[in-house]
């Protein structure tokens, strides 16, 4: 999987995260929800890997599993040269400063009874031995970095707007000089005009501190803006992974094609001329995934083989990976053109 160049900062191989289902009066183990089922990816230093998919596809679970916020079911995770797949809690705690997380809902992820200084300073209390004055100095530094006024340090989260609260969450994630940050839908709860502010801030901070992001989002247009490479998840698996421009310019997997086609275009003339791929039906349950290809129940191209054999996730072009029987060395070019041109319906 790893391409030429520096070795990746984060290496995920065959990651599985299954949640058991217990039923009946004896709480017997009757099945598993396969939230993340055998995914492999690399995240290179200082890059942003976008992880996109619809709700329930397992993208947030994948993000949390990569940080070992769960005890994973299988596979391996290496962060900055250390295999963290099954190390114990105490060792993990010492590694936490290196890898941090920004959560979706800034309302729910900040303790309403703590002041801003308390929230941002808490990781410093946990992991570093600083004097009170040193700590406050660092908190101020962080508030400057994320564009919060220092005079707000003693206020409580409810006194801030959504965008400002997300800045507090970002400052907290930055407190311990992390290398790797998982951003789990950091802008989903914000208004459009505020989203751009936060995304620009994340880009600035990446440049300033050399951060590596795993950017999880369902917003395909924002991911196109921020990510260098993009992985598309469907029902617990990665169906396509490619450099950003290739993925958006010529998506290979039928699901990626449908997903991109479903995003409406903010231009009434182009939108009315564009050909839409409308998927039928809903995503199947991850506890009872279809036999063969996960996407076969909704795929407009599905044939017999798709219902029998699971396609392998493999490299089809330089840096381009996909899991589809019909994408091979002779890559199909029937994809909807998504760059510039439009098609008559």
């Amino acid at each position, binding site marked *: 999987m790893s391409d030429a160049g520096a070795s990746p900062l984060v290496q995920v191989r065959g990651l599985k995260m299954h949640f058991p289902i217990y039923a009946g009066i004896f709480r017997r183990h009757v099945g598993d929800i396969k939230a993340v089922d055998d995914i492999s990816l690399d995240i290179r230093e200082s890059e942003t890997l976008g992880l996109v998919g619809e709700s329930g596809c397992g993208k947030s679970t994948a993000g949390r599993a990569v940080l070992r916020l769960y005890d994973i079911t299988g596979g391996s995770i290496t962060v900055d040269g250390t295999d963290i797949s099954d190390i114990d809690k105490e060792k993990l705690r010492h590694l936490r400063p290196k890898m941090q997380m920004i959560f979706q809902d800034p309302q729910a992820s900040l303790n309403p009874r703590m002041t801003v200084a308390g929230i941002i300073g808490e990781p410093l209390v946990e992991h570093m031995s600083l004097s009170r004055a040193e700590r406050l100095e660092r908190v101020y530094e962080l508030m400057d970095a994320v564009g919060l006024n220092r005079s707000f340090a003693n206020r409580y989260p409810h006194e801030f707007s959504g965008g400002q609260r997300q800045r507090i969450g970002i400052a907290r994630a930055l407190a311990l000089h992390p290398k790797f940050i998982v951003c789990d839908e950091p802008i989903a709860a914000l208004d459009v005009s505020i989203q751009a502010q936060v995304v620009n801030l994340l880009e600035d901070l990446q440049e300033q501190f050399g951060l590596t992001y795993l950017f999880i989002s369902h917003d395909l247009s924002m991911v196109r803006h921020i990510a260098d490479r993009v992985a598309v998840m469907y029902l617990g698996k990665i169906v396509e992974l490619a450099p950003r421009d290739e993925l958006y310019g010529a998506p290979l997997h039928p699901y990626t094609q449908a997903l991109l086609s479903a995003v409406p275009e*903010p231009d009434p003339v182009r939108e009315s001329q564009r050909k839409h791929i409308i998927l039928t039906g809903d995503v199947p349950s991850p506890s009872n995934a279809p036999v063969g290809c996960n996407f076969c129940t909704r795929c407009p191209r599905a044939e017999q083989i798709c219902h029998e054999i699971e396609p392998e996730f493999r490299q089809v072009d330089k840096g381009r990976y996909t899991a589809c029987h019909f994408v091979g060395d002779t890559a199909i070019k029937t994809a909807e053109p998504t760059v510039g041109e439009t098609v008559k319906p």
Partner: protein
Amino acid sequence: MSEDGAAVLDVKDLRTVFETAQGAIHAVNSVSFDLRPGELLGVVGESGSGKSVTMMSLIGLLGTTAATVDGAHVNFDGMDLLRVTEDELRAVRGAGIGFVFQDPMTSLNPVFTVGFQLMEPLRNHMGMTTREARQRAVELLELVGIADAEKRLSDYPHQFSGGMRQRVMIAMALSCDPKVLIADEPTTALDVTIQAQILELMKELRHKLGMAIVWITHDLGVIAGIADRVMVMYGGQIVELAPVIELFKNPQHPYTRALLQTVPSVRGSRAERLRVIQGQPPILFSPPQRCSYSARCNHAFDRCLAADPARISVGDGHDVACFWDPETGEPR
């Protein structure tokens, strides 16, 4: 304002004020618009811009406790909705004006079957018998593309997926053949592929049923695909109102222009840096004395701080409330 007198809904000078512990919030300030037969009017704005409150105000959905709704008139079907009794308003809601809410998870009652909830308005508003209502409910579910409609009537909301629940909500809103359908962010809680299904369904239903639709959203992409006219709201006011192609081609208000620039796209060219609207939307503790966008506007000048710009016509069906002229870069 309406050139043709045949508007199905004619709203003039609507105002809504909420009494809160912190003081009065002027959520809707002198909003006037009309809705023509069979058209789809898109309403765009950020949260707190007053788009939902406007629509809820005009059909009396806010309740009477904290909100005061006032205005010149809201004419619908020969009635002024601001001056009718609660009973008459009740009859209008559902039968005359249907409503689809944003969140299909919370707007269906979890303890009743979908069939029961679909049949309830049919029996109350249309005076149908249970058998007739059942028949109609099946037709409605088929209309919105739910397979096995007959069987699904006895299912509970939790047995439906999000997209299916939104289809049920739409079926419910359509059940009494309303003249006007108000859809408040009907696809915001849904995934894009499901949103595409619902948008396709709405386009189809519009042509089949010919009703007028008000579609509230913050997603300019959605609006571009379905609306005939668009009204942009900010600070409880309409800052711009124009036919959809005109609005996207020739936006006049700095807020509309900024909104169109901040939204990245999955197609076309990709900006290296996103354009940002600095600052926050206002909280309206008093009726506007200045332009409510002036604090965030790059073009604001002294007049914007001294007076609230009135809505003026700048073209065919194109209104804007701004003192600044983007063509000349000068005050109007």
